[in-house]
């Protein structure tokens, strides 16, 4: 068990966004988070690497509780990809990827560059190493963002709806990269609206509803034969059935 979430709650003012989430994630497991907008998927991910401070509850990474004093350390092992990829616009694709290894892990420049180019090759952007984010398409930007998050060799990757902001024709290339990543045995938690992706890649699907895990299980079960009425409604809406 690499990640353990216990009774996590998060409120923004009076609004309860997460209302007691408990979740264990095994090493190599791919967990898909589905649910309507506002159900708490993003907030859950952001509480895991402490971009948001939980209101109550605990998160353990490899048995160690993540606190505000150790979160900077722990984040090196937990990569994150955002909906709006948040690339650094003043740096080239390669520099985006190598920045954290150079400045956080103090990897020598030449080694960081070599590894950075390998990562860009992996996301099939080896030829765009010197392009700036503004010169790349949305899909390419998101693939650079994945390579950037991978550069610290994290043990867990968090994906916060990585394809939601993309033009439909660009979604495929990003999902393909994520699929490849899952095949390498990376532990992933993916908030997504791509049910096809969830069914194909995820080991487990969680349905979040109003800040709670309403239903979870293997994709075949949750996506094909949901037990809960609300899950069925949600899937019907998303899949247009």
């Amino acid at each position, binding site marked *: 068990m690499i990640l353990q979430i216990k009774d996590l709650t998060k409120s923004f003012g009076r609004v309860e966004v997460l209302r007691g989430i408990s979740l264990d994630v095994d090493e190599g497991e791919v967990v898909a988070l589905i649910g309507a907008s506002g159900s708490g998927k993003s907030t859950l991910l952001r509480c895991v690497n402490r971009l948001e401070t939980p209101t109550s509850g605990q998160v353990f990474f490899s048995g160690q509780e993540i606190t505000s004093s150790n979160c900077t350390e722990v984040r090196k092992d*937990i990569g994150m990809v955002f909906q709006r990829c948040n*690339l650094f616009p003043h740096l080239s694709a390669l520099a985006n990827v190598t*920045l954290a290894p150079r400045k*956080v892990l103090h990897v020598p420049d030449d080694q960081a560059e070599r590894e950075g180019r390998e990562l860009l090759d992996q996301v099939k952007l080896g030829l765009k190493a010197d392009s700036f984010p503004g010169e790349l398409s949305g899909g390419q930007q998101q693939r650079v963002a994945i390579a950037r998050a991978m550069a610290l060799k994290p043990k867990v990757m968090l994906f916060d709806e990585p394809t939601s902001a993309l033009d439909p024709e660009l979604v495929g290339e990003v999902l393909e990269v994520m699929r490849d990543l899952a095949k390498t045995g990376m532990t992933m938690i993916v908030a997504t609206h791509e049910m096809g992706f969830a069914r194909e890649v995820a080991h487990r699907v969680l349905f979040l509803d109003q800040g709670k895990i309403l239903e979870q299980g293997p994709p075949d079960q949750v996506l094909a034969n949901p037990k809960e009425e609300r899950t069925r409604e949600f899937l019907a809406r998303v899949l247009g059935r």
Partner: protein
Amino acid sequence: MRIFAAGLLLLLSGLGFGQSSLEAIRRRGELIICTDATYPPFEYMDAQKMVGFDVDIGNAIGAELGVKTRWISLEWAGVLGSLESGKADIAMAGVTITEERKTKGYLFSRPYCLSGQVIARRAGDLRIQKPQDLKDKRVSVQAETTGQFAVDRIGVPKDHQLRFDQIQDGLMDLRNKKSDATVGDLPVIKAILNKGYPEIELAGPVFVEENLGIVAWKTNVNLVSQINMALATIMVDGRYAAAYKKWFGEPLTPGIIGKLEAAKGAGSKVPEFVDNAPAPTDLGKRVSGSAFTFRWDLIGTAAPLLLLGARLTLALTALSILIGIPSGLMFALMRMSSIPPLKWIGTVYIEVVRGTPLLMQIYVIYFVLPAIGIELPSFAAGVLALSLNAAAYIAEIFRAGIESIDSGQMEAAKSLGMDYRAAMSYVILPQTVRRVLPPLTNEAVALLKDSSLVSVVALSELMRVGKEIATNSGSPTTVYLTVAVFYLAMTLPLTWLVRRLENRWQPISRPRDRKGRKAVAA
């Protein structure tokens, strides 16, 4: 005594010519007297009322002419200019009668007061006893006054002269031990010392004697004749004696009256008895047209001096910006800090500095800090004041710049294991710098212009040098236009350079724009 220092006020006021003949004054029933009410005991503000020797004498003259008086107070640089433009009929501001001023078109009444230059020193400082002792000392004076010229004649080198806008500042400088002596008008220094400078005393008697006169523009010969008559009357009927005793604190002696009588010829030559007769044609017709000619011949002598001033202006500005940028960034980060004491300090600093005038800050740093043991020479005080001031404005520029960066950037940096410092250094600030460059340039240009304010602590920067040259040039317009060119020569390359930098950075911050779309202002 103060010499004609033509300022921009003169330039502006020279545009319109009014009528202020004796007849016009009588029709109006009012004599308009221009002065600069910062000059005790001649004229100063006492509880919102202008009082002083000149005020009493001027009012007595008005009474003699059968009209009321109206006093207007301007900055000294504009006082004499107001005569030429007709905004005032006469000037009474403790003005020294000089031949140079007569040639510029001013008429003087007969001397109405004797004055002279004296040396002030710190009490008991026996190194300073006579004018020759000043040669190797630092001497403060009021800029462009006969006090400064007296110091010139003694042979005090220019870099030992501390030139202030007001004699009060010179005396404060003396008290703060930055100057060794102050040279100025006896009555004025005496009046100021009486109000509370126990640390300062006079060293010896008057060493240059001067006559003060009432000034009018050259078309007003009749008026001056009338004023001379009025003066003669009040000098014997007791009104003059009363004012003298009241303001100089000692009785008027026959000796003084004798001296004033003897010096009668120092004033302008005007007919002695005139009553509404037309003015002599040769004087009356020479109403100067204000047709402006650019005096190219002045440039040769002015340019090297202005260049020196520009160099100081540039040095002050460059140093202040160099200090102001890192300190501004520091204050911005403090203000945005989540640690309450830091936030509090940053906020208070920025608001206090932005909420008070730069001039006041310069005064505080130069004149007030010595009271708590912090002694700074002029240049250091100037740089400190300018950079502390700039820091507050730059802090707000940085704050706005940092806050304009998308919050996702900080989150992305944090998610990559960066701490606040690393995220700021490698992600946020590099983007901020590009955004704040235009407002930062504005600040640099503003600072370059504001640096003229440090002339109050005796720094001969460009504007001060310009003023000084203009005073003796005979064509202030030429000098000020040249000064403007010097300022532009410094500010335009700066804005041009930054525009180039911005264009060069454009592909990085807004890459798409390179392909033809116009950049939208951030």
